């Protein structure tokens, strides 16, 4: 009894009890805590959270026991207190004991972990499928059951990143067009990439799956509640790796169906409008071109067209942007294989393509006076690579 009392009477042990308690307090903070893993929005993410907390508490207890004994020894078995060293140097019994106990703890942990893992890897019998494609530095979502696909880009303005404007609450966490999903459906994600390896991570779904170029990974989620869930790319994918967030807008099945109908109608309308559009004026082209250039091209070629020497070529004063117009159009539409230059023909509308090429041929002193029209883009697209 006296020994136990001493254990509590010791300052160092109190510190450890306090540490374990505060670790628990941090861990039990409400969801969305800035200090702990999210509980998430799916049954599996709850399980993952529970596994995380159990192993965390086990680690705390092991730490408290081992460090407690060590500090007890440090306080009581010091030469300054007149301790004389014992001369024991081994005990088979105790070695077996502290090998066997950890093995038992590990087995106890491995069982629930294995069960959860096997459930997470079973993407069969899905209600719907989304193809997620990463490329430098944006995500592309394609609904396999609907004629809907789109790119999703960071919507934080450059001004905020460069500290020229106040940062809003969703700084670096918002996109122009979120992925929209229904609740209560088993959704299968097929994950791949166009260029380098990316990783699609939404903490609330406990999903992090690498997007490997040339290979397709699968994973799944069944989301319980409507809401906005945010994540970001989790595998270093080049210069703007830190700037490719993921936003998932989860709606009730009814609201989701309505959204699908709206999307299809909007796409039809946009197509018709572009087909009806005739020649664009230079002002129209340059204005639209600057917007597209700043969101799509400036990350590599820089907003002044100067590029990054040795990494990304300059457009300002370059041969391609001042001389050979068909080659310029071809480059933007079909990209340059095995480089970071993507094929924008499938990413932008004909009007946007015409505008951005016009902009590149007339901005920053590239005063070629060339205009590129929608008809030229369509001709080049139908001619193919």
């Amino acid at each position: 009894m006296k020994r136990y009392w001493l254990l509590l009477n010791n300052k160092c042990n109190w510190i450890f009890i306090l540490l374990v308690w505060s670790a628990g307090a941090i861990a039990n903070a409400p969801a969305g805590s800035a200090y702990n893993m999210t509980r998430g929005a799916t049954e599996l993410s709850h399980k993952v959270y529970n596994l995380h907390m159990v192993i965390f508490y086990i680690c705390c207890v092991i730490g408290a026991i081992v460090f407690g004994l060590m500090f007890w020894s440090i306080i009581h078995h010091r030469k300054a207190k007149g301790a004389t060293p014992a001369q024991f140097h081994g005990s088979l019994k105790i070695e077996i004991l502290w090998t066997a106990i950890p093995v038992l703890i590990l087995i106890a942990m491995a069982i629930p972990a294995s069960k959860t893992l096997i459930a997470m890897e079973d993407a069969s019998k899905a209600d719907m499928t989304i193809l997620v494609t990463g490329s430098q530095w944006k995500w592309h979502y394609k609904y396999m059951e609907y004629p809907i696909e789109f790119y999703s880009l960071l919507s934080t303005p450059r001004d905020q990143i460069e500290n020229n404007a106040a940062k809003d609450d969703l700084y670096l966490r918002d996109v122009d067009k979120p992925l929209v999903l229904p609740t209560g459906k088993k959704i299968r994600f097929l994950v791949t990439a166009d260029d380098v390896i990316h990783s699609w991570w939404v903490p609330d779904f406990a999903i992090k799956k690498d997007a490997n170029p040339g290979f397709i990974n699968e994973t799944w989620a069944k989301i319980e509640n409507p809401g906005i869930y945010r994540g970001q790319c989790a595998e270093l994918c080049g210069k703007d790796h830190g700037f490719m967030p993921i936003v998932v807008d989860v709606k009730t099945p009814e609201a989701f169906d309505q959204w699908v109908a709206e999307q299809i109608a909007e796409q039809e309308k946009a197509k018709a409008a572009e087909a009806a559009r005739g020649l664009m004026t230079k002002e129209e082209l340059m204005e639209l071109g600057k917007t597209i250039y700043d969101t799509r091209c400036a990350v590599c070629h820089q907003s002044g067209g100067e590029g990054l020497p040795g990494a990304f070529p300059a457009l300002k004063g370059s041969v391609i942007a001042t001389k050979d117009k068909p080659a310029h159009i071809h480059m933007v539409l079909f990209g340059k294989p095995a480089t970071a230059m993507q094929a924008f023909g499938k990413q932008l509308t004909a009007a946007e393509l015409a505008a951005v090429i016009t902009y590149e041929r007339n901005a920053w002193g590239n005063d070629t006076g060339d205009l590129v029209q929608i008809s030229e883009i369509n001709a080049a697209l139908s001619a193919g690579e």
Partner: protein
Amino acid sequence: MSQEHSQSIESANTHHADDAHDHKPQGFSRWFYTTNHKDIGTLYLLFALLMLFTGGSMAMVIRAELFQPGLQFVDPHFFNQMTTVHGLVMVFGAIMPTFVGLANWMVPMMIGAPDMALPRMNNWSFWLLPCAFTILLSTLFMEGGAPAAGWTFYAPLSTTYSNDSTAFFVFAVHLMGISSIMGAMNIIVTIFNLRAPGMTWMKLPLFVWTWIITAFLLIAVMPVLAGVVTMVLTDKYFGTSFFNAAGGGDPVMFQHIFWFFGHPEVYIMILPAFGIISSIVPAFARKPLFGYESMVIATASIAFLSFIVWAHHMFTTGMPVAAELFFMYTTMLIAVPTGVKVFNWVATMWRGAMTFETPMMFAIAFIVLFTIGGLSGLMLAITPADFQYQDTYFVVAHFHYVLVTGALFGIIAGVYFWIPKWTGVMYSERLGQCHFWCSLISVNMLFFPMHFVGLAGMPRRIPDYALQFADMNAFISIGGFLFGLSQLLFVWVVFRCIRRKGEKATAQVWEGAEGLEWQVPSPAPYHTFQTPPEIKSGH
């Protein structure tokens, strides 16, 4: 700098030049042509110190950029170069060469050998390193900059999508690999052949045991690294498609090969530190090491397991579930031998008569903080939870706890422990304690909060972050700057010793220290054990 202290070492050596065989050239040619294990050890240690500060200054750039959200000092491309080169310099330039330097100094003295078995190769394996790092660091000043694909240089970011620094990087890694393999061969041959009569295997100090196991790991995996960088080179420049799906290759295969090297590499960077701690704790507890045999067996088990856990770095790459289960179980198993080591150290302290000089302080900090790193490693082994931890600051916190407060603290403890033997003077205990407390507090300010930002969802290797991580990152950066500054104290302590400022050390140096290295005078003469010593019974 090296000229200056080389002179001071020389002048000190002339005082102790009672050894008739002590002929050596002076100045530059002494160091360039030297085949003496102590000289080469010194070269390794000073080079590693220089690299520690080179890599450290890159860490300061990283922490300065991350002090606040937004881009302040560097552009994202340069930020990626910093994280990449910081990792490469710290792993291959600071930690690994320090351990080779310590082995050069201590292994011959601990086993009663006159020198390393292959002294000329020893010289070459050191002098390759400055060449390798000149090549690597020169890329920082080239158009397009240094490698920026992370120290793990995953394909195809490091092949198709990299710039031309790749060729320099590959060549530099080849040189580092040749250097490491030669260093490892030398240590193996020395320990197998040059032990003093009576120095049987189970009498070897644990530092020697951990190093021989490390040396075998190096020989096993450095060629794998050489293979993978060569594949990167041919993929980029010679049209092969090892890692390019369009040509029938597989980018994930890169990760398998890399981590087959990379995981044993992790143990290469920690096993010698285990050896150092196993020397220091008994010395300051004045009590024999608890469970010597089980320490040897645990070290060998860790080395064996290190070959069958590599894919735990790749749980999110989309492996079959059977493979994920296998690698989860093997990874969890590593906790068992590692636990045995920690328990043995605690049992060694138990009922000892401890004193707390600087080496012991760092050794105790090592045991506590390395164990924290080990426990977070156990959490990372749980595959479903790893999906959330992977590539976040939680991982950054984990591996910095094992590499900074583990490997680096072990090294610092070893330097304080042995520097009286190297220089013949005691370091300043007051400065040493000051260095210890500054390092201990700042290193935890630096790395402990990283666990929390990682769990809350901050990915690693990003130059800018969302606003909810701002306060923590500012705090972490302050910890980082303080930790960086604290190491200047270390340099001061070391250079005071090199310039012979301090109390003269006895041969024994530490009351409780045991082993052959404490039977030669301090500083250790230029040549030791030219006639083999007699080995008493017992460890």
